[in-house]
């Protein structure tokens, strides 16, 4: 068994080393692939806070991923068409600035997560899954019919948004940016998990009755976790849209919500680097097997099956001998 910290360190170093090697070998596509894995990892780290610590099986996290994507799409669209964005009483200009877009993406995702959380946290178990799924579908169909921003066809952004001092069109620079965000998010996640809030949330997943009898409100703890979780996944959505320079309703799809859950289960539920392993494996399989057959999801399914049956702690559990959290 390998200590968890060592596994984390190796993963972290690998995520830096692979793009650097690709840079030297002049393989920009590999850098883009790693960037994709990093961004999916950010989204899954976000979900892991709700799912792994809070026990909230949200089958609607694509809502936040999509909101982040559309926050980027809408703001950049108005900037590239030089049209103002009319928000009822308020008219603002579009922007191509990543920091502003990230701020918008996290803020709107947090706000929507708060609303969805308030409504769906009254339920639990299968009902919670169904309600979050229903919200996901609402946003999906709304995006499809929103013709101003491309409807079903989605919305292309011609030039990647900018970050002060960087040329984000160069793959390694955009990778660096995404990687730093992943690192910050992982660091915040680690602090949160060890904090008093994390301890209480962890207990609220396992024994809500106990949490109540020590005078804390498990619902409120879970709501805050859901908001933090949604905000992080929203930020990942904005980055993902920028990576592809394209937003479409598929970012809201329930399949994407499902994939995020699968990433976490494969990597290790509730483990800090679980989503990172899951995302790396997912992107690798998608690329290698996807090149061989269109039915590569079959293999993903087999891996998932093997993990659920024989390694409940995911790959992280296999490596470190620690079980994942039980949801």
């Amino acid at each position, binding site marked *: 068994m390998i200590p968890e910290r060592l596994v984390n360190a190796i993963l972290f170093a690998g995520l830096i080393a692979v793009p650097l090697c690709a840079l030297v070998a002049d393989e920009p596509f590999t850098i883009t692939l790693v960037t994709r894995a990093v961004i999916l990892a950010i989204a899954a780290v976000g979900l892991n806070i709700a799912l792994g610590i809070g026990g909230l099986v949200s089958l609607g996290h694509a809502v936040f991923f999509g909101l982040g994507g559309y926050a980027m799409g809408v703001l950049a669209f108005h900037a590239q068409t030089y049209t103002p964005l009319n928000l009822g009483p308020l008219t603002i200009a579009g922007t191509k600035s990543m920091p502003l877009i990230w701020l918008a993406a996290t803020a709107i995702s947090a706000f929507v997560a708060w609303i969805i959380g308030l409504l769906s946290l009254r339920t639990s178990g299968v009902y919670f899954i169904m309600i979050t799924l229903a919200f996901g579908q609402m946003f999906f169909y709304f995006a499809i019919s929103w013709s101003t921003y491309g409807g079903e066809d989605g919305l292309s952004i011609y030039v990647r948004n900018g970050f002060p001092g960087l040329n984000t069109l160069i793959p390694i620079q955009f990778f660096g940016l995404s990687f730093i965000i992943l690192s910050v998010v992982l660091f915040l996640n680690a602090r949160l998990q060890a904090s008093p809030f994390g301890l209480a949330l962890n207990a609220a997943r396992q024994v809500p009755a106990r949490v109540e009898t*020590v005078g804390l409100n498990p619902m409120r703890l879970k709501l805050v976790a859901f908001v933090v979780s949604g905000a992080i996944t929203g930020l990942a959505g904005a980055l993902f849209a920028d990576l592809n320079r394209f937003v479409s309703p598929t970012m809201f799809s329930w399949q994407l919500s499902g994939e995020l859950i699968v990433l976490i289960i494969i990597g290790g539920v509730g483990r800090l680097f679980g989503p990172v392993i899951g995302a790396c494996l997912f992107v690798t399989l998608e690329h290698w097997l996807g090149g061989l057959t269109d039915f590569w999801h079959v293999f993903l399914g087999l891996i998932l099956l093997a993990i659920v049956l024989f390694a409940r702690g995911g790959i992280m559990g296999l490596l470190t001998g620690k079980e994942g959290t039980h949801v």
Partner: protein
Amino acid sequence: MSDPILATHNLRKAFGALTATDDISIDLNEGEIHAIIGPNGAGKSTLIAQICGGLRPDSGSVHLLGRDVTSDSTQARAQAGLGRTFQISALAMEDTVLENAILGSLGASGRPWRFWQAALGDRTLRERAEAALERVGLSDLRDTRCGSLSHGQRRQLEVAVALTLEPKAFVMDEPMAGLGAEGSKLLTGFLDQLRTEAPILLVEHDMDAVLALADRISVLVYGKVIATGTVDEIRSSPEVRSAYLGEDA
């Protein structure tokens, strides 16, 4: 005598045609252990749930430290000074003994909205938790996962978590359940001391413990309190003998 710490007035709760608690008025005074006994299905659990906030009574009221808390949530009652232990251990099994105790000190502190500093590194939280573990004799196991504790140790931890709240009144739902003779004896000695800190409403099946500890006993049958009194009064009550022991008096 001063006002009771904890009291119920004419509590009534029915589930359909079944009246689970029927007009129950009991009280708990400072320094005493008040035991509630009764056969299975007598309504003890329903009564506890109404006292602690899990169930809303159809009518009647619950008073804690002279204040009406009938419409307060479980959390609010805990904050007001009600410490509870569960019949079936309700502990975070994936967490360590110390983490479970710290959850209690965190509840007592009322400040869970801290996202940065490590919970285990917070001295105030930790000292309070370790003091409680020390008292029930679990200090050596502080880093053990709760899931690998023995049944008896879990019962001890249940009590320790309630202690971290430094409550004004305890409600204990069968704390002796599943303990061996030795464990029961130890816990009996502990509760005997504890009553001077805060009175205990004790629901218990272990009659040896009840007879050894209780200042007063209330007998609950079919949702009604059929008798309240000292150990001797209850022992000699013909009503109790007939209802509880199934004898024709």
